[in-house]
């Protein structure tokens, strides 16, 4: 199993229990790959932060912060209306 496969398996493990063989391969890879261990922790954190995001009661600071810390869209893909709509949820 390489890193690409391992990230795929770590993402899939958020959705369903991995088959025993895949789980074993993943564990073997993680034992030797700190990068994918970090990825695994970050995927768990993403879920926790989405839960916190859905439930949070604080006001978002607003668009001026986004201007201060601009995020470039790497390949120039258009913002999806979907995500834009969602981002708008907690204030822009």
């Amino acid at each position, binding site marked *: 199993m*390489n*890193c*690409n*496969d391992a*990230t*795929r398996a770590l*993402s*899939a493990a*958020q*959705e*369903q229990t991995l088959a025993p063989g895949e789980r074993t391969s993943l564990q073997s890879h993680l034992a030797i790959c*700190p*990068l*994918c261990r*970090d*990825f695994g*922790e*970050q*995927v768990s*954190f*993403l*879920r*926790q*932060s*989405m*839960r*916190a*995001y*859905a*439930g*949070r*009661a*604080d*006001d*978002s*600071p*607003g668009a001026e*912060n*986004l201007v201060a*810390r601009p*995020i470039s*869209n*790497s*390949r120039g*893909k258009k*913002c*999806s*209306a*979907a*995500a*834009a*709509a*969602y*981002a*708008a*949820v*907690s204030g*822009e």
Partner: protein
Amino acid sequence: MRFVEDLRRRMLRFATLQLSDIGLAEDAVQEAFVGALRGSGTFAGRSAYRSWVFAILRHKIADQLRAQVRYASLPDDEPSPDVLVEGWFEADGHWTETAAPSHWGDPHTALQDNQFWSVFEACLDHLPEQQSRLFMMREFVELDSAEICSATGVTTTNLNVSLHRARLRLRNCLEQHWFGSEDARS
């Protein structure tokens, strides 16, 4: 009232994205406002109200998506190649040097920081549309994989591909704009 108009517009955009039907989306938003009215007088300010009304909308959308079987389905095309994400791995499947994750320490402290949430939202905002729709269904509306596949007609395999890519993109974006920056680590 400007605040309510803005809120309604945002809710409608989100509901339309999720339900792919403007009529259903309008109904869900309307019901969420009516539901929130029943609890009025108990909100400590606008943010609490907004959270509450969105929580109701989330439940309405979840119910609607569970009830509809491929009603609002997208064609289950093979997800188009995501060249950005593909570029983060070498041909042999290992991380490229620039895309390899770094250690975030304890990221949970960021959850208390309003600026972090601005970055978080901006990162969500930059997901490609199909990834965003499916990721939000999974992680925000909190449908499980089977429910999402049933509601959208997307296969489990393609759902997993989209979720994997969305997670890679979000992770990368948060690292670039929050966890990798000096001020966030201090």
